[in-house]
């Protein structure tokens, strides 16, 4: 998910967290519930249109902030945007080998679907899940060493964030897996 420029408030600050890739999920969740309780339209009520508008606005901002920090990929992208600026999001570079492999896998998926080969589809699912996993591990590592002056790290992180989207999209096309 491409985070849009922060809407005037810092997501980490909102939840009382240090801006870093590793966060305490429990603290994040607890703070979210607390804040949700104060701004949700059901609680604020329909006293006036203005109140409702504000409540909707605050709730959507809160939800966006929470969803961003909760998902490791979105969190990494957010950290990157803070350090490298919003322009970085426009960089669509992807590691070359990733594109090649994605195209190949796409063909294999289509063949397996046409042939209704569930075993092949399951094997593909495992393979792509593993690829996604590695991308995620790289994202984690790069995010941890992210610094304002290290443009190499920033570029690499950008590439991996772009790449993981392809893996996720491929997985979306496959039937959901058994519980492995």
């Amino acid at each position: 998910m491409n985070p849009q420029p922060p809407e005037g408030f810092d997501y980490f600050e909102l939840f009382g967290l240090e801006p870093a890739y590793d966060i305490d999920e429990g603290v994040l969740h607890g703070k979210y519930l607390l804040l949700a309780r104060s701004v949700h339209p059901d609680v604020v009520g329909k006293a006036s249109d203005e109140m409702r508008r504000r409540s909707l606005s605050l709730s959507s901002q809160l939800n966006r902030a929470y969803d961003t920090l909760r998902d490791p990929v979105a969190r990494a992208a957010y950290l990157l945007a803070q350090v490298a600026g919003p322009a970085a999001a426009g960089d669509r570079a992807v590691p070359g080998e990733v594109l090649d492999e994605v195209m190949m896998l796409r063909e294999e998926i289509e063949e397996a679907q046409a042939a209704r080969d569930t075993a092949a589809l399951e094997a593909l699912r495992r393979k792509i899940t593993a690829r996604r996993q590695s991308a995620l591990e790289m994202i984690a590592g790069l995010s941890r060493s992210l610094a304002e002056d290290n443009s190499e790290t920033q570029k690499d992180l950008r590439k991996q964030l772009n790449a993981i989207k392809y893996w996720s999209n491929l997985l979306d096309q496959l039937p959901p897996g058994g519980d492995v």
Partner: protein
Amino acid sequence: MTSGTDIIIGIDLGTTNSLAAFCDESGPRIIRDESGDGCLRSVLAFSRDGRVTIGAEAKTHAVENPTSTVFSIKRLMGRGYEELAASGELSHLPYAVVKRATDTRHRDVAAVEISGKLMTPPELSGIILRKLSQLAADHLGREVTKAVITVPAYFDDAQRQATRDAGRIAGLDVVRIINEPTAAALAYGLGIRAPARGQAAGALQLNLAGDRRSVDEANPADTPRARPAEGESLIAVYDLGGGTFDVSILRLAEGIFEVQSTHGNTHLGGDDFDREIIELVQHEVREEFGVEINTPAARQALRILAENVKIRLSTEEAAPIEIELDQERRYTRTIERSEFETLISPWLDMTIESCRRALNDARATPGMIDQVILVGGSTRIPLVRRRIEELFGRRCYTALNPDEVVALGAAVQAAILSGTRRDALLLDVIPLSLGIETMGGAVGKLIMRNTRIPCRATERFSTFVDGQANVKINVLQGERELARDCRSLGEFELRGIPPMPAGIPKILVEFLIDENGILNVSAKEERSGKQAGIQIIPAHGLTADEVKRMELESYEHAREDMTAQRLIGLRNQIAFDTNKAEQMLAQAGEELSAPERSAIVSAMGELRALAETSEDADSLHNALNRFDARTLRLAEMAITRTLRETDGTGRAARTFAITFLPMNRRVEVDPRDLPYGHRGLPGSILDIALKHGIDLTHACGGVGACATCHVIVHQGQSACNKLTEGEADQLDSAYGPTPHSRLACRCVPDGTQDLLVEIPEWNRNLALSKEPQT
């Protein structure tokens, strides 16, 4: 905050059944009618003169008037004619669905055609909602104008709007639309027990700690799906109703119900299982006899039969089918449960796949689920439970009544919104991705599925032509890549753009999904700062003006229908009260003077005559009140006499009466003469009827093994023994059961009240044909 005196009720508007519920200090409870029934069958029967009957009585008309009996209207909500026709949905419906003529090419509104009149699905659902709110108003003794209405979690924007429109047409302010699985989770999480009929919902305790499970190998580097902390639990709600299926994964903590993900199918439900049986029968009849079962009447009858077979197969291993094709030919078949299971397996496979997708999206494995809650009548099918248990590796939670839990949850949410409860909050998600059509017919996704709501996305647009004043956007919902594979919510036209060269205006459009899961769009031209007007032409829904007009019309109709119902009720009451007065005269009349007696007799005659000729409910009501006032003294005397005549066994020796309709034959029974020794339980209605020459059909000999002695006890049901499971089962397969139905051979009056018993049409032929005997 809404004012404290505003009542908000919760409504489950279901494909097969609808219910209303209300929550007060003692907790939520289903709103029931006088006979204790809370479920209103979602069936509408239209008579030729435009009157409409709703509920179980409507169902009895289904076979006689197949083209004017509407059921499962929920399956048509928010959908256009073209897509319905293409999906094959319409070929299963005996009533006619057409495309309503609309003003623009882009609109495609489906409507049901009854006797030349067109009614859209929201209007039809509105009739059901109006009846429910009237029931609630009667029960609560106050006007009801606000409601929380539930929808399947997987309903898209158009379907939600249609539901809200239906509410408006019914004169209800729909303060919130909530998802059915979330409502069920609310009922579960607050420890609300919804037990079998007759009992009140249990007291509330917070019930948030589920079983603790050991952590499965969730991938450590992937989202650390934190194990629920102390007092937290992860639950799955599997909701399989008549027409829709949803599965939701929720996290419960500190009274907050957070939906993690949801998946489903808005066209998968018990109706499809019925259709498997229907198609099997149609196929075999075609093969064996070369006969096509395709008249509307035959299809309605077959549908009712299939539904009964399906229900039977939940408790029995086999169910018989018998159809008389004509004078000579008969189709008989026994369907085994295993056969039925094979037929419905592909449908269940789809639901299990939905469960897996929801788990994936929630980044959970089946083993992490602490509790699986079942919602919807179809979850009573044994195979459904087995498949769910296989997937989650644990037994399902079945303490909640799957038919009532959603309405109860809705009532709790209503209480939260009206400020009378503060202990829970629902945080839901949008079930389907939202996007707009881009160049080349692709979809640019703006909001991903399972994003928590309220949520918002913005997008910028500009113009193509110098001075262009309007920009059109096609908004879509769905997961596919191409616009044509997604559902169009409608055309949004941004208007009033100040004249500028092409490409210069910067129109910022905000797409906001509110807490109901409904889309709100607003736009601003950034250079001028002007708010752009938005005209929304819904693809399959009604415009605001149309809804307003329909609301007024429906109010008028409701008044007419209410009058018709009132007339029927009043006429029955008059028959009852005059008969009772006759009896009391016989019993205690000698204590009155002769002029008093004849005054009562002539009043009786007048009232009866009025009941036959008058169509004015108000004047009948007044006449009845006057008559009752006049006979009050007589009634008092009769009671005093009764008390004096207690026969020492503690049981009143007074006689009681049963009035049999439609012959209007009043039979007096002295309890000391019972039992008469005819068929049926001793002292049962059948025993009494046979004694007095009313020959009620009783094919099984009166042992309660069939439904042919089915009668409708309009008055006095509370003075009879209670229904047993077995009797209820028989009645389920009877022809058109109503909430007042009983088997005459099983129903034993205790003599403390008079009864008004109707012999339904299909039993009358035999009952009327014989002469009275002793």
